[in-house]
């Protein structure tokens, strides 16, 4: 295996609180040394030299919320196309959601996903397994054997665990394995048949609304159960001011919980639905401006720990339907980093160190995986980012099998140019 020397890049590694221009040496697939002069490394002929001048050298990005289609949704995405999309977006590790068909609720399915990822040979894939059998919210899945097979976390994906008794049992049971439960907080009775956020826009368009309280009420329940059980709960794609305030208060009194937000929720609002474009239909829905601002405030003060893509590919024929029939979800792996740069870093809401922390070491710690860091000795997963690259989002340019992006036609800034997984260059983009 050849060595890599990345020179003159601005190395930002939030896990070590590092932000300085330096050289980084990768040997035998591991992070080997910083501050190596070119002359010292070049004595060995097999060193490949990457000039990262003007670029950012970050730990490979970690996404803890992506749907990869397989098994059962191969018309939307496959593990091969989804992991290629991940690389293009700068991600070197992704945790994949279990809302597959069949769902990831047996050892066999976990092993299948892992094997498909090995065959694809793009990036690391960590399966998330179901909390309940068949994601029905009725009885617990065989969590112990799923952990043995390689599940890193448990979730019923977009199906909220409505029964509080089941949620409590799951949190208690998972204490034995120290694995997090990823919750989609939604009171279905409040939001069922909804198409978009309930507000002035939904009133005007006469589209059935999903009120903010549908999320906040369930967030409150989840917090109370996490508090009483001591279980590890992680709240997925939080989108409302009410939920964020509840999480903020819970953290202040020491409840062990983490929360994530998707790039869509801090960059777009329900105004986008005025076009009746089904590529703006997601769950939780795009909210009003006040909620968007609360998401940004939550990111700034640390209430929201993680930025996760919430990648939900949907085949074009599914989205080419009436808005109430079209499924929820947008692709996001290939735009997440650029949206963070364009909507958080460039306007000055977050600095690079804080933004990258929420896309590297924080999700890695929630999942308990040894990723998202450039510590010497770890697998060399590195993403080199051109912070000034600007590009226009085109439907034909995605590596994902689907093109249901809410950003089509928009110009975004910041893009991964070189993506290294375990010391091997897996993706390069000419800027």
């Amino acid at each position, binding site marked *: 295996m050849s060595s890599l020397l990345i020179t003159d890049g601005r190395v930002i590694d939030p896990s070590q609180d590092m932000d300085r221009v330096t050289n980084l040496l990768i040997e035998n697939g591991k992070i080997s040394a910083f501050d190596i002069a070119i002359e010292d490394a070049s004595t060995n002929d097999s060193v490949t030299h990457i000039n990262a001048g003007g670029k950012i050298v970050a730990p490979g990005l970690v996404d803890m919320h992506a749907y990869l289609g397989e098994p059962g949704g191969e018309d939307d995405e496959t593990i091969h196309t989804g992991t290629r999309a991940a690389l293009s977006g700068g991600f070197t590790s992704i945790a994949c959601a279990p809302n597959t068909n069949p769902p990831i609720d047996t050892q066999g399915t976990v092993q299948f996903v892992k094997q498909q990822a090995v065959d694809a040979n793009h990036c690391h894939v960590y399966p998330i397994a179901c909390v309940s059998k068949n994601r029905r919210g009725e009885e617990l899945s065989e969590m112990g054997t799923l952990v043995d097979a390689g599940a890193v976390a448990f979730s019923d994906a977009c199906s909220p665990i409505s029964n509080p008794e089941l949620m409590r049992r799951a949190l208690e049971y998972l204490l034995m394995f120290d694995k997090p439960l990823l919750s989609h907080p939604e009171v279905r009775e409040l939001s*069922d*048949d909804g198409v978009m956020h309930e*507000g*002035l826009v939904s*009133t*005007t*368009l*006469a*589209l*059935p609304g999903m009120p903010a309280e549908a999320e906040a009420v369930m967030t409150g329940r989840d917090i109370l159960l996490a508090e009483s059980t001591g279980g590890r709960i992680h709240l997925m794609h939080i989108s409302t001011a009410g939920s964020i305030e509840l999480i903020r208060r819970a953290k202040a009194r020491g409840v062990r919980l983490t929360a994530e937000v998707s790039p869509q929720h801090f960059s777009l609002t329900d105004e986008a639905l005025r*076009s*009746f474009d089904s590529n703006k239909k997601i769950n939780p829905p795009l909210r009003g401006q006040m909620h968007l601002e609360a998401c940004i405030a939550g990111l700034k003060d640390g209430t929201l720990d993680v930025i996760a893509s919430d990648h939900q590919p949907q085949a074009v*024929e599914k989205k*080419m*339907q*009436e*808005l*109430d*029939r079209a499924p929820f979800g947008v692709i996001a792996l290939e735009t997440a980093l650029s949206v963070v740069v364009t909507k958080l870093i460039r306007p000055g809401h977050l600095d690079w160190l804080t933004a990258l922390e929420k896309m590297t070491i924080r999700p890695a710690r929630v999942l308990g995986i040894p990723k998202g860091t450039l510590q010497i000795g770890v697998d060399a997963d590195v993403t080199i980012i051109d912070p000034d690259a600007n590009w226009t989002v085109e439907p034909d340019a995605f590596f994902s099998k689907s093109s249901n992006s809410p950003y089509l036609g928009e110009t975004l800034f910041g893009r991964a140019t070189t993506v290294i997984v375990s010391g091997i260059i897996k993706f390069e983009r000419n800027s």
Partner: protein
Amino acid sequence: MHAPVMDNSIDTKNWARADLLGLEHLSADEITAILDAAQQLKERTGGCAEKIDLLQGTTVANLFFENSTRTRTSFSLAARRLGADVIDFSASGSSLSKGETFIDTAKNIEAMNVNTVVMRHRTPGTPQLLAQNIGCSVINAGDGAHEHPTQGLLDIMTIREHREKIEGLTVALVGDISHSRTARSNIWGLKKLGAHVIVCGPSTLVSRRWEELGVEVAYSLDAILPRCDVLNLLRIQFERQITRPFPSVREYALLYAMTGERMARAKEDILIMAPGPINRGTEVTPEVADGPHSVILHQVTNGLAIRMAVLYLTHEAAR
């Protein structure tokens, strides 16, 4: 029976749209252009009773994905009055039940060289989606509870015939505002022409959010009644309600039905309108529906005039 056709017999200035998707995005001038054209057509056809061959050789397709009798009949007759051929397509028994998307269905119909598609659908926004995907004119005949522009226009035309000016009038829309496309189209059209609009009904069916758009929100019909020049009594859309928004029809009628007793407390020249079909006894009692203040049947005739005007104007703009 044919009225004489003159060159440029109908005024098309101020109108340049090939589609009519709703009233929200029209200007006051555009709304007035349709109202004026409808008035001219009504006068030249003996009250929409005679033919005027302005669209001879063209084809209008009624594409109704949701049941409708009167709107479809009105569009069919309006098209025939203009000399167009009409084809009717309804969702039942079609390929839609075989899994075809509605856009594919519409493209198939367009391929038969149709000039205008009149579309009704249960989902808001489908006419917009259709207009983006096919080349012919698209007229929205009702998309869910979103818009029903020709209904809004015929309501406004009826008011204008009786009051000449819309500006300064107080018009109350009474009943199920949440599920009413008629309400939304009326709100946009009336506000653009300068009316004061009140939405009145049970609090579970009338959102406070309308206030943000300059619409008065009221829960008591008795409180607003003395101020109203026009009452438009909307039908309770039982079929669109997911959970029942009020305890009983009896209670609704007690609070909101327009009765002879309430008429005694209204302005002397109040106009009573209803987009129909009406639930007699729920929204309005027979004595009021059939009484001297009722213009419900005028609305039906004006519906023909408005639809003739819209078919003609959109066709001219598309040429």
